[in-house]
C-alpha cells in the first residue's frame, strides 16, 4: 500500500483526507456511518465566542454541480463546544482542527485563546472568509492587511498552529496568502465558498433567506485548483486544499496543484461514506499515476516544484 501519511504543523495525518468545516458538524452524525479514526483529521464546524442561531431558513439551495449555503455560523459557542463536542471527538484517534470564526478581531482572539487553553485540539483553522456573516467576517477575507492583522493577533494568544482559511472572492489570492504567511500563519486552507445567489422564480426573491450564500461543490473545483496552484508558487507554508472534491482523482489533482492535504465538504451530503471511500481509493490512483506516496505528489503539477 502507498504511504498516505503526511506531517503538517500540529497534525500527524495518517492520510490526507479530512471532512471540511461546516459539512460534518462535530462528527457525531457521521460517526454512526463509520469510525472517525479512519480520517486524516476532523475539522469542526465554526466556533464563535458565544452561541449563534444563524440565518433564517431556507439556508441551502441546489445549483448545477454544487450548492449554495447560508447557515450563518450557527453553533453553541466555543465553551460549549469544548465541553460537549470535543470530548466526543477525542474518543477517536484523530487530530482535531478547530474552525475559529467571529464578527470582530476581539472575538477571533477570544475563541482562539479559549481553544488554546484546552490541550484538546491540534490546530486552529482561522475562518476569515465566511461570506455569510455580515458584521465583518467578509472584510477580513478580502483585505490583506486586515487578514494579516487578525492572523498576527491570534498567533500571539495561541500556541496552536494556525491555518488561515482564504476566501476565493478576491481579485488577488496570492496577495492574501502572502499577507497571512508574513503574519505568521502556519498553513493555509483554501478555498472557502464563492459568493453566489439563486432567485426563486415563484416568489421572485432570492431563495435563501440570507439572499446570498456560499457556492461549493464540483462546480468550483477549477477555481480552487487555480488558486492553490498560484499560491503554491509564492508561499512556502503548507496548504490544505478543498473545493469540489468528489473522487480520488480529484484528491490527486489538488495534491499536484500544491495541496498537502485535502478537505471534503459538500460531497458528504450526497455520500456520507465519501471520506473513507476516498482514503481507500487513493493508493490505487497514486500508483496509477506513478506516485509512491502522498508526499511525492505534492506540488508536482507546479513548475517550480514538479
Amino acid at each position, binding site marked *: 500500500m502507498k504511504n498516505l501519511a503526511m506531517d503538517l504543523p500540529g497534525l500527524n495525518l495518517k492520510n490526507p483526507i479530512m471532512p471540511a468545516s461546516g*459539512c460534518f458538524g462535530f462528527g457525531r*452524525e457521521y460517526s*454512526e456511518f463509520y469510525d472517525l479514526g479512519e480520517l486524516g483529521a476532523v475539522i469542526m464546524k465554526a466556533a464563535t465566542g458565544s452561541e449563534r442561531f444563524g440565518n433564517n431558513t431556507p439556508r441551502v439551495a441546489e445549483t448545477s454541480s*454544487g450548492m449554495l449555503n447560508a447557515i450563518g455560523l450557527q453553533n453553541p459557542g466555543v465553551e460549549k463546544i469544548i465541553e460537549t463536542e470535543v470530548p466526543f471527538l477525542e474518543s477517536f484517534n484523530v487530530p482535531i482542527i478547530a474552525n475559529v470564526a467571529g464578527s470582530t478581531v476581539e472575538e477571533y482572539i477570544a475563541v482562539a485563546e479559549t481553544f488554546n487553553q484546552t490541550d484538546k485540539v491540534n490546530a486552529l483553522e482561522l475562518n476569515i472568509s465566511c461570506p455569510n456573516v455580515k458584521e465583518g467576517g467578509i472584510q477580513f477575507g478580502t483585505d490583506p492587511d486586515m487578514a494579516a492583522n487578525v492572523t498576527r493577533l491570534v498567533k500571539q494568544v495561541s500556541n496552536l498552529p494556525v491555518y488561515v482559511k482564504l476566501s476565493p472572492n478576491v481579485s488577488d489570492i496570492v496577495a492574501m496568502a502572502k499577507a497571512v504567511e508574513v503574519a505568521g500563519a502556519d498553513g493555509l486552507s483554501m478555498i472557502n465558498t464563492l459568493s453566489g445567489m439563486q432567485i426563486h422564480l415563484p416568489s421572485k426573491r432570492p431563495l435563501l433567506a440570507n439572499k446570498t450564500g456560499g457556492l461549493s461543490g464540483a462546480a468550483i473545483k477549477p477555481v480552487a485548483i487555480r488558486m492553490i496552484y498560484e499560491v503554491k508558487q509564492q508561499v512556502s507554508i503548507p496548504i490544505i486544499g478543498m473545493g469540489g472534491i468528489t473522487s480520488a482523482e480529484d484528491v490527486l489533482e489538488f495534491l499536484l496543484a500544491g495541496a498537502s492535504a485535502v478537505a471534503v465538504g459538500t460531497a458528504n451530503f*450526497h455520500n456520507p461514506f465519501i471520506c473513507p471511500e476516498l482514503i481507500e481509493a487513493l493508493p490505487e490512483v497514486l500508483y496509477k499515476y506513478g506516485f509512491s506516496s502522498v508526499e511525492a505528489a505534492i506540488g508536482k503539477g507546479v513548475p517550480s516544484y514538479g
Partner: protein
Amino acid sequence: MMRKEKLHILSSKQVALDTVEMVLENTYISKTAVPGQFLHVSVEGHSLRRPISIADIDMENETITILFKIIGSGTKQLATYQRGMKIDVLGPSGNGFNLEIRADSTILLIGGGIGVPPLYYLGKTLAKNHIKLISILGYQTAQHVFYEQRFQEIGETHIVTNDGTHGKKGLVTDVLDTFDFDRYYACGPVPMLQAITAKLEHQPGFISLEERMGCGVGACFACVIPTDTPDGYKKICKDGPVFNAQEVSL
C-alpha cells in the same frame, strides 16, 4: 439507525396528476422504519438528495412505498426511473410520529396534497391497533386526488378540493370543527399547518414539517426550526420531521 441502502424499484406508476407512486424493495428499511420517517433519495446529476416520506411499508414482502409530486428537476428525473432500476437512499431518516395512543382514542389525520403520504402508513399502523381514525384529505382538484380508497379502508375519510371538483369544496380547515377527536396528526404545506395549529391550538397534535436540506443527517444545520426547547432550535432532518405542534414556531 439510518443506513445507505440500494433499493430495487418494483413498480413506478402515476396515481394522480404529476404524482408518482413507487414501490421499492429493501429488507433493512422495511424492517426498521416507523411511520413519519423519510428516505433521503439520491437522483443522478443532482448534488443534493431529495427527502421523500415513507407512505407505506409491507413488512412481509419487504417493500416500501413512496409517493411524490413532480415539482422540479429532481422529482422529474426520479419519475423516469423504471422497474428494475435501483435507487440509492439514506434511511430510514428522522423521527416518526408518536404512536403511544390510548386504545379508545379517536385520531384525526389531516393531510394536504403531497403531505398526505406519510399519514397513510401512520393510519394503517394505528388502524391495526384498532384506533379509530378520521381522515381529512385536501387536494387542489379532483385530478390531484390519490389514496382516497385506501384511507376509506382504514377509517372515515373526507375529501376536500380547492375547486370542489371532488368531495367538499374548500380547505381542510373549513371542516375541522365538525369532528370530535383526542389528538391530531397533520402534514401539508406550511400555510395549512399554520391554519391548523392556530385553529386547534388547545388540542394535542403532531405536525410533520418540510425544509430544504443539505446533509439530511443532522450535520449541516440547514434545516433548523426555532423551538421552545433549551437549545432554541431543532433539526427537521434529525429531530423531526414530526414535531409536537406546541413545540415549534411556524
